[in-house]
């Protein structure tokens, strides 16, 4: 993720509070039209997923049938079990989960601590640290691809959880988000804490942390999805089936050298299993997700 100027974002933040004001509802034909349009659009957006689900419940004969069937069939259980077994889905889901959670949690912790240090302390090299963190925004994975691979190799972390997660743990986006959030906390709070005799760490954990939950929740969603959906990094770093993540494993399910037949129903079953956790996270945490991203200062 890269640096983005976001004045509009800021303004949106201010205005988003106004979003809570109740609105008069539109009545009659106008509302019906809007509903209809929305449902049509949503149908288009949801269709690919629905179709993937339908295919994942069919058997091979039904998959190649013309005209294509649009209603779910009866082979759900056997397809999912077969896909699970064939691609070692259990291991891959575990690897993805480890990666996503570790990256999300790790990033949040590291960024929070760094942002706290940069905002609430005045120390030699503070600006240097700040700019160093900033520069990482300009170095996305592809730019350091080959050499990062060598570094990981030198550390002996190829094909390991450390190799999968640690290099992704420091990026500037979360740090800057926390920094901006901390900068918006009124000075008086910190002063009061100091007067109280509370040390910096206490201030961090007792005051800042509780205030940041919305931010943290939103960040967690974004970072979890980022970690779960990583493709290039795990592709490079892991090369045994035991370490593969589910997104890579799915790509390997697609037969590209003909001794295996294209079992699209199993591939779709795999795809469903691959996308379920992050989508579930979004659905369940969507309120925090939207809030935390858009309203980062309170």
């Amino acid at each position, binding site marked *: 993720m890269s640096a983005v100027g976001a004045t509009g974002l800021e303004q949106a933040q201010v205005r988003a509070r106004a979003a809570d004001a109740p609105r008069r509802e539109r009545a009659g034909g106008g509302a019906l039209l809007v509903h209809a349009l929305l449902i049509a659009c949503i149908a288009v957006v949801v269709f690919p997923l629905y179709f993937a689900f339908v295919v994942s419940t069919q058997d091979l004969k039904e998959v190649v049938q013309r005209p294509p069937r649009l209603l779910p069939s009866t082979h759900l259980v056997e397809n999912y079990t077969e896909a699970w077994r064939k691609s070692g889905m259990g291991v891959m889901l575990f690897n993805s989960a480890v990666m996503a959670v570790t990256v999300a949690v*790790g990033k949040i912790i590291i960024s929070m601590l760094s942002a706290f240090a940069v905002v609430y302390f005045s120390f030699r090299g503070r600006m240097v640290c700040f700019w160093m963190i900033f520069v990482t925004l300009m170095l996305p994975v592809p730019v350091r691809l080959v050499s990062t691979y060598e570094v990981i*190799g030198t550390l002996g972390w190829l094909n390991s959880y450390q190799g999968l997660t640690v290099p992704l743990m420091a990026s500037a986006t979360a740090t800057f988000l926390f920094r901006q959030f901390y900068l918006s906390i009124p000075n008086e709070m910190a002063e009061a804490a100091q007067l109280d005799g509370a040390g910096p760490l*206490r201030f961090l*954990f007792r005051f800042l942390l509780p205030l940041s939950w919305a931010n943290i929740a939103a960040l967690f969603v974004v970072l979890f999805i980022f970690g779960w959906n990583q493709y290039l990094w795990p592709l490079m770093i892991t090369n045994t089936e035991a370490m593969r993540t589910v997104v890579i494993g799915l790509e390997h399910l697609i037969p590209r*050298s003909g*001794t295996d*037949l294209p079992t699209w129903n199993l591939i779709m079953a795999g795809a469903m299993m691959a996308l379920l956790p992050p989508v579930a996270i979004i659905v369940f945490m969507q309120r925090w997700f939207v809030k935390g991203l858009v309203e980062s200062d309170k």
Partner: protein
Amino acid sequence: MPETKTSWWSAGAALLLATALLLVPATPALAKTEIQFWHAMTGQLNDAVNALVKQFNESQAEYEVKPLQKGNYAETLTAAIAAYRQRQAPHIVQVFEVGTQTMMLSGAILPVYQLMKEQEIAVDWKDFIAPVVGYYSKDGNLYSMPFNSSTPILYYNKDAFQKAGLDPSKPPQTWKQVEEYSKKLIASGATKCGFSTGWPSWVQVENMHALHDQPFASKHNGFDGLDTQLLINQEFGVKHLAQLAAWQKENVFSYGGRRGDADPKFLSGECGIYMQSSALIGGFTKGASFKWGTGQLPHYGAPYKRATSIIGGATLWVMKGRPSPENRGTARFLKFVSDTNQQMWWHVTTGYLAISNSAVKNLEAGYHFKKNPDQYTAFAQLTKGTATPNSQGLRLGNFTQIRDVIEAEMENVFAGKKTAKQGLDDAVAKSNEMLKEFAAANKQ
């Protein structure tokens, strides 16, 4: 100083977690002498490899070979190279035929003939069939151990042939017949398209040139020196590609993608004729819902001689840098794999060619080929034609990229974006650049 213990603990825990993650090393291997064997076999082939390795491990008590599936051929090679650079290379690596030159000149491998000499294990080098030996030897010495070799052959849908009024026991033998049969298949509604192909460059460019005794590259297809250049944009190459493009328009030929992406076209009955690796026999036996047969690759006939096709597949390379006791295990495993019995077993199980003459003789004696005539097609195509200098194989550096380039240009031609001559000229120009790069990087 933080006043409560909780703050300290949380801070400490966080830092501890961070440090711990940074310090946990990758776990090392232990127990009886392990031989790491990296390969690229998937599906049933993976199962076959595991079974073969198990046979070896159970036949003796000193060494344990550990097979690891590392992805596809390109990924396996990349992984091996990266591991080698970190001094963590496996003992044995399966590398596809296009990586031969890269491996040979790499200085990272221990040639197989040398390994066997050092370990004083006798191998009957002369027993290996000529096309295989030719491909992987230098100065008469075998550098890698042949393992899974195949050659492209022609498959055809017997049921569809029947429906179209064609004799289901007679596959097309010339390109003219291919065209004729395809048109009949389409006309009768038996199939939608006539024929398709897998591995476009390997089958339609490399093998067609070899089969018709045409040079693929100068310097004897690269065997005689690094300053080689491609010759696929000469008369034959242009003629064949232009023909394919023309047929593409009539659906006589239907392009289905690279590698094995077009397999479904044959399996689904969409195309009645298919050209792909002989290694697919096993897969088709399991997966085809119709009767099918095999034949040799089609030929244009006069004025072109009928030579032989070239092999594909992969061989086993030994990586340098291991102590002699471990090399001994490697040598014993390689010997095991190349033994007549194991060869026969491997061939019957996977469909890959048996690569030693003894194995072939034994199979013949057991009427194996009579019972499985399709298995014989590949063998016959490789050994019963007239071997010429143009049909012994290819030895080019950066060959993976070159194949890529050729296939990309083929796609441009099939899409109608370029004429066959243009596409091939561009392919040759780019490939020659890569060959030059390779030569420069490997100045000997």
